[in-house]
């Protein structure tokens, strides 16, 4: 065999391996989604949205968990995203390349990928221990701490996309930077900021580990913020590990609801971004 044939064979072999790797990887992920879909649809019913989580051995729904997840996610985002947005504004408009900004960016990227269970322990130490009991508000704060780095990152990226000419024009009219940011930069980056919010909601609503030691769980309907509150991820965690068939079915149904919601949010965020990009290139 001459060198040319060997090279061709090697080329073919490695490219085939690459295709095989793609097929294997996608097959694993497809299998996962398929199981989720088939088990989840089996457990779907109207009861899910009208009844509370049941005691073992009886049927029920997920109403209190859905409510708790919604409340804590909304509160977490309401607390976390303004902080993330303001901090992102500082990095994009004021700090830019200062060494403080470089440090904050670095720390933020670390927080972005830090294990969320650590955040749970942190909030347990500073809130749950002080209050003496688990509470929905502690859960919301834990989610807020997770939302901050996500919104910070997207806000900074989106503000940087705003053309410098617009800011210069505003400054030339005599506006202070705060006026420019509020009246020119934020409106121009609106779609991008909404995308960041959607991504933050998607990220936060699937988090389980930080809620485990903060909001814990509650089998009953509760709207009190300073008491333990049911939430979808922790219910899935507890019910899936139980030996009861009814509970496992509810866990699968909950898993499907959560995944569908998160995928919808991510797709929505992507759509807004792609609309934004075509919009921008059309204007050019």
């Amino acid at each position, binding site marked *: 065999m001459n060198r040319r044939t060997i090279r061709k064979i090697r080329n073919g072999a490695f490219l085939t391996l690459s295709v095989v790797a793609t097929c294997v990887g996608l097959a*694993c992920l497809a299998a996962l989604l398929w*199981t989720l879909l088939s088990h989840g649809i089996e457990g779907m019913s109207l009861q899910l949205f009208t009844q509370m989580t049941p005691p073992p051995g009886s049927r029920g729904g997920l109403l209190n968990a859905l409510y708790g997840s919604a409340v804590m996610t909304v509160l977490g985002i309401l607390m976390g995203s303004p902080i993330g947005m303001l*901090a992102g504004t500082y990095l994009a408009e004021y700090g830019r390349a200062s060494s403080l900004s470089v*440090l904050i960016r670095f720390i933020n990227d670390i927080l972005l990928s830090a294990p969320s*269970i650590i955040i749970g322990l942190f909030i347990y130490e500073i809130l749950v221990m002080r209050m003496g009991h688990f509470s929905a508000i502690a859960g919301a704060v834990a989610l807020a701490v997770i939302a901050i780095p996500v919104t910070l990152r997207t806000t900074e990226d989106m503000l940087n996309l705003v053309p410098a000419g617009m800011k210069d024009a505003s400054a030339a009219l005599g506006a202070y930077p705060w006026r420019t940011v509020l009246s020119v930069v934020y409106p121009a980056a609106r779609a991008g900021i909404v995308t960041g919010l959607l991504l933050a909601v998607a990220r936060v609503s699937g988090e389980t580990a930080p809620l485990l030691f903060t909001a814990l769980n509650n089998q009953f309907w509760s709207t009190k913020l300073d008491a333990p509150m049911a939430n979808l991820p922790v219910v899935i965690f507890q019910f899936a590990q139980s030996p009861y068939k009814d509970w496992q079915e509810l866990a699968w149904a909950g*898993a499907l609801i959560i995944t569908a919601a998160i995928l919808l949010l991510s797709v929505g965020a992507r759509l807004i971004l792609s609309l934004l990009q075509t919009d921008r290139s059309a204007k050019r």
Partner: protein
Amino acid sequence: MAIIDPRHAARQLIYEKAFRSATLAAAMLVLLILGGVAVSLVRGAWPALEHFGFGFVTREIWNPVTDEYGALGPIYGTLVTSLIAMLLAVPTAFGIALFLTEICPPVLKRAIGTAVELLAAVPSIIFGIWGLFVLAPKLQRYVQPWLIEHIGPIPLVGRLFQGPPFGIGILTAGIVLAIMVLPFIAATMRDVFDTVPAMLKESGYGLGATTWEVIWNVVVPHSRVGMLGGIMLGLGRALGETMAVTFVIGNAHRISASLLAPGTTISSAIANEFTEAVGDLYTSSLIALGLLLFLITFAVIAIAQAMLRRLERRVGS
């Protein structure tokens, strides 16, 4: 000529200072959070660290009855499951990234790329229950008996595949982790490969190189730093992952030679035991585990970020 009202100008200046301070305060809060995490973990872990000293990291014992704790079991489990995950996920992710950048027809490129990115957003608890209900029984029935029968008798390597097929265990946790970090690493690697200038690749093809030769001699050397950064970020995720692992690890604080045996990881030990821990020393030991995890992941993520940043600067210049 317009007359500037001095009071208006003064008010504007005050607003400016207030807004700037608000944004700065928010930015400083990010530093404060990381500092707060570190301080609160050290404070929570102090009783255990004081009581057990350095032995906490080197002892394998974990006994709530006699109140004796050592972290070696969870540390071992964390490192080994992550190692298995990386061994499986990195080559597969490399293949996917190559497929997406070099082989895939443009029609599919966008669709598969988006699918991979969306899968990276699926919450980890989903991977956990899938591992428990679907993967573990399959492994127990088909894969593990084969491993025990055929690889078990081989000296040295065989030690890793002996004992009964539990289904759940270190190996299963590693596989679930691999599937979980796969989309993440693949997406990062694809982005890195995309930064290789087309001119460099075309030059390779112009010299008569095959696709694989261009990949191995042009694309890979050019993206080495970014690839490592992506792998380290994936490793950071795998080390700290809680929910995907907790379901399938078996929660046993023992170090077994066999990968088929149940074990525990730092994060799954905390998730399983923290709310049920009675006694200050028990709680404190679990927080000390958290501190260890924090230190390990901090180092890994910091190195990853530094690498990706170097790449960004190079692309930017």
